[in-house]
């Protein structure tokens, strides 16, 4: 009962804060050796004041309601999970609940959650946070995650757990009780000092393997923060050597594995070879939970991939050639200006998708070109070639496929214009299709999903990112065109082929022969074997491959430099391909062997979960 103690200075309510003494003049006495009894008497003072002034007095009904509310929220036992009854919108899985219990009751709220990918570390962390909040043990919490995951965390905490979490956007956002921010922002000035001057009841760090190195600013920043409870989330507590494990655990509980030298002496033979495994495992068990998928690995259904090779019509081929020449000429004219060159490559990719996509880019390019430039006329010529095209070979094939399947199907394209064209094309053939794109607001996205689930056979999407689109009920996808960034392809597949998918998934790649697309499909499919990779593997491959330049950039460079020389292009791409498949083999071969001994210890911490679709 602190009427003056609203959320602004509500921190005082946590009289346990290390620096803060209780408000007012508390009376302190011992109830039991080491157990202080503290009476908060602020209420008495308030009451006396009202008696003296003869009011104002409150309402009798509200008084009773306040008592009933307190009774209903009463935390009557130390060790049950109170939060479960206040989460009507979803049901956590049994291993998530048991993990939360363990963190709360055996680890006192400081733990590393090291589940394998896809078992729901976020849910486990959410359960722990919610439970502490329900019990009034946590009021202020900070969640540090990679920038790309901030909104996802905010949404998840709000919708699943009913926790008012805010994404840190402006300086004042730090004032909210539960804030989600990117690590990169938080550790930078002026935010850094502000956060280091706070007492956080709980700190959660996602992708905590980024804290494996003691010397990094990330590590030092987290080490310097004042926190009561702390959760570190990572699927890969050890990526390279055992020191990473030591650093991570020392951040959470210094001394748990002894000092640095002790650790090295007691537990390390070589950087990837532990000794005294039993003791190490015991020490780990006190701070880490690692749930793994059952032995059969994840029970994913099969992916059946089919490349459908298509020959462009004469008109389309004419456009492709015209555009290729155009790109060639521009490249020769302004050697070196890479940024403008990249948009030219886009043009070439767009021809493989639809004339509408090319048209839009050309119009924009026309607008940007100075009026007196001879290039304008050339662009206009291309537009003339576009006029000659009446049909879209790929769209016809896609329609044929959709009719054959007679089942829900999602079609992905990179281009808005292609999406519009396809929507119209399908509509004119009496096929119901709904769009989905990144720019839609949440409500509209949800609505489109509902339509697809209920009425439409086809969903045409330009965006695969965002966790909002879970399409386990759909077993077919058509890649109308392919992104050059393999991660984006994996994201697309991940929308359909994920936990909860009960059928085999059919993936169709539409691929026009004699174009750049043909090379891309062969590169992604045959060389990286993208469509059959285990989740997470692609990450490793790309991390090693893309040292200076992304795959996308390298492809663009190759394409431009090869010009009209088809052999040179093929040669370059083959070279890319073989270095990719070499890396893939390395990744597949060496990693598990290398960390085998470490994994054995890690894996003994926690349980095996059979996740069935």
């Amino acid at each position: 009962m602190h009427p003056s103690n609203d959320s602004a200075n509500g921190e005082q309510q946590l009289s346990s804060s290390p620096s803060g003494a209780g408000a007012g003049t508390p009376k302190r006495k011992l109830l039991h050796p080491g157990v202080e009894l503290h009476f908060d008497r602020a209420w008495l003072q308030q009451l006396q004041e009202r008696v003296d002034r003869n009011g104002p007095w409150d309402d009798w009904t509200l008084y009773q309601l306040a008592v009933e509310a307190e009774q209903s929220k009463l935390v009557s036992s130390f060790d049950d999970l109170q939060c479960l009854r206040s989460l009507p919108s979803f049901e956590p899985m049994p291993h998530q609940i048991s993990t939360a219990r363990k963190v709360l009751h055996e680890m006192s709220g400081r733990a590393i959650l090291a589940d394998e990918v896809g078992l729901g570390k976020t849910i486990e962390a959410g359960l722990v946070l919610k439970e502490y909040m329900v019990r009034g043990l946590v009021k202020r919490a900070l969640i540090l995650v990679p920038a790309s995951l901030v909104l996802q965390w905010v949404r998840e905490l709000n919708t699943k757990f009913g926790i008012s979490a805010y994404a840190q956007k402006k300086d004042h956002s730090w004032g909210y009780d539960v804030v989600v921010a990117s690590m990169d922002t938080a550790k930078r000035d002026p935010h850094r000092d502000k956060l280091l001057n706070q007492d956080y009841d709980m700190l959660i760090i996602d992708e905590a393997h980024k804290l494996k190195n003691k010397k990094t600013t990330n590590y030092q920043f987290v080490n310097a923060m004042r926190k009561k409870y702390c959760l570190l989330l990572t699927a890969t507590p050890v990526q390279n050597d055992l020191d990473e494990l030591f650093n991570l655990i020392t951040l959470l509980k210094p001394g748990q594995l002894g000092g640095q030298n002790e650790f090295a002496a007691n537990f390390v033979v070589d950087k990837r070879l532990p000794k005294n495994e039993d003791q190490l495992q015991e020490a780990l068990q006190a701070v880490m939970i690692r749930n793994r998928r059952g032995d059969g690995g994840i029970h994913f259904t099969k992916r059946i991939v089919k490349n459908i090779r298509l020959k462009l019509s004469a008109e389309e081929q004419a456009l492709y050639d015209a555009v290729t020449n155009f790109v060639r000429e521009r490249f020769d004219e302004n050697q070196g200006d890479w940024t403008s060159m990249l948009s030219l490559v886009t043009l070439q990719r767009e021809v493989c998708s639809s004339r509408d996509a090319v048209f839009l880019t050309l119009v924009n390019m026309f607008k940007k070109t100075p009026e007196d430039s001879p290039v304008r006329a050339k662009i206009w010529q291309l537009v003339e070639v576009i006029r000659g095209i009446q049909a879209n070979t790929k769209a016809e094939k896609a329609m044929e496929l959709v009719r054959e399947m007679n089942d829900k199907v999602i079609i992905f394209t990179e281009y808005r214009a292609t999406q519009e064209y396809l929507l119209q094309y399908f509509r004119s053939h009496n096929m119901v299709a709904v769009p989905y794109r990144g720019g839609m607001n949440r409500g509209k996205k949800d609505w489109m999903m509902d339509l697809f689930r209920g009425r439409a056979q086809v969903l045409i999407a330009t965006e695969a990112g965002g966790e909002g689109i879970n399409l386990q009920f759909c077993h077919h996808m058509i890649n109308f065109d392919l992104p050059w960034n393999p991660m984006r392809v994996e994201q697309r597949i991940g929308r359909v082929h994920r936990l909860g998918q009960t059928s085999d998934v059919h993936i169709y790649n539409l691929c026009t022969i004699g174009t750049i697309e043909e090379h891309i499909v062969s590169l992604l499919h045959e060389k990286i074997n993208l469509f059959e990779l285990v989740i997470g593997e692609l990450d490793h491959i790309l991390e090693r491959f893309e040292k200076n330049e992304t795959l996308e950039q390298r492809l663009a460079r190759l394409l431009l430099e090869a010009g009209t020389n088809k052999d040179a292009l093929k040669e370059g791409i083959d070279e890319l391909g073989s270095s990719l498949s070499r890396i893939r083999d390395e990744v597949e071969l060496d990693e598990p062997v290398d960390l085998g001994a470490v994994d054995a210890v890690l894996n003994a911490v926690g349980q095996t979960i059979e996740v069935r679709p």
Partner: protein
Amino acid sequence: MNERQIHKFVQRYLEATDCRIVEKSPAHFQVKLSPRADRDLTNRPYYWSFVDRTGAEPETMSMLLVTDKNKYDEADAAAKQKPPVPQKPAAGSAGAAGEAAFGRSFGYLNSTINPSARMAREDLHFGARRLEQLFQSAKLGGSYLCLFQEPEKRTSHPLHSTAYSAWLGVNMKVEFLCDMKREEIHSFGISLATGQCLEQFNDRLLQHKMTPKLPPNVHTAKNAITLNKAASIAEGILERKLRAYDYGWADAAARRLEEELSTIRHYYEPLIEGAEEEHRPLIAEQYERRQDEIRWQYEPRVSVSATNCGIFYLQGIG
């Protein structure tokens, strides 16, 4: 709280705060909030400070409060199956439409001419944020009371005066804290006339009809003890009860605390010793911080605060 309890709770809240219930079923309420409820529930501090500063007529919000989601959705779906009832055009609808058009172009929307405006739907399940706000609002508006017991009708004789005495009633929340937590509620009533202390006082109050006004033909006995003294009596009784509790949980927490402290001591002490002179203060400071964190996390303690309290005048000399 189950759905029925929540429904009842919400109904009593709405009535107590003078909200206008526009429509209701056993699964929902559609309400126009009272200014008081609006202040507590709609998170519009800027709007209300504007109203307070300018004295403008406040426009409160409407809400659809769903207390039983499943039942409401079922009923809603059933209603949608039926063909819509043709709407009778309201008198002067042309005028209203005109006004609406003006409204659109001037960016002004009056809720009275736009009754179909989207109303925020709130599902009030246990644990829902909006319900939590209702709880908070109830607490804010029900903290300090001064009430009189209503005399039973038949005993009232015009010349007869009944003696009342004042009681301090207080509902206390006891929190048993360490890295975990448990709570209890204790309700005490202390007679300011005699110092007698009753437990479960709140239940006793609920048996009477209470009124904020001093009833006729009633006189109040003089207080013999101060509020301060009365509070001390209650605290003393509570303390005696608490002393008899089992503190196994606290001993366990203290053991955890010691273990944790010794773990970090084992880590930091050699580290500080082995460090170069210039780095020592920094590491020592870090050690200090870790120790503080551990105490903050584990230290067992019991903390007592009041949920709400009041002066209650009850019949008889307590």
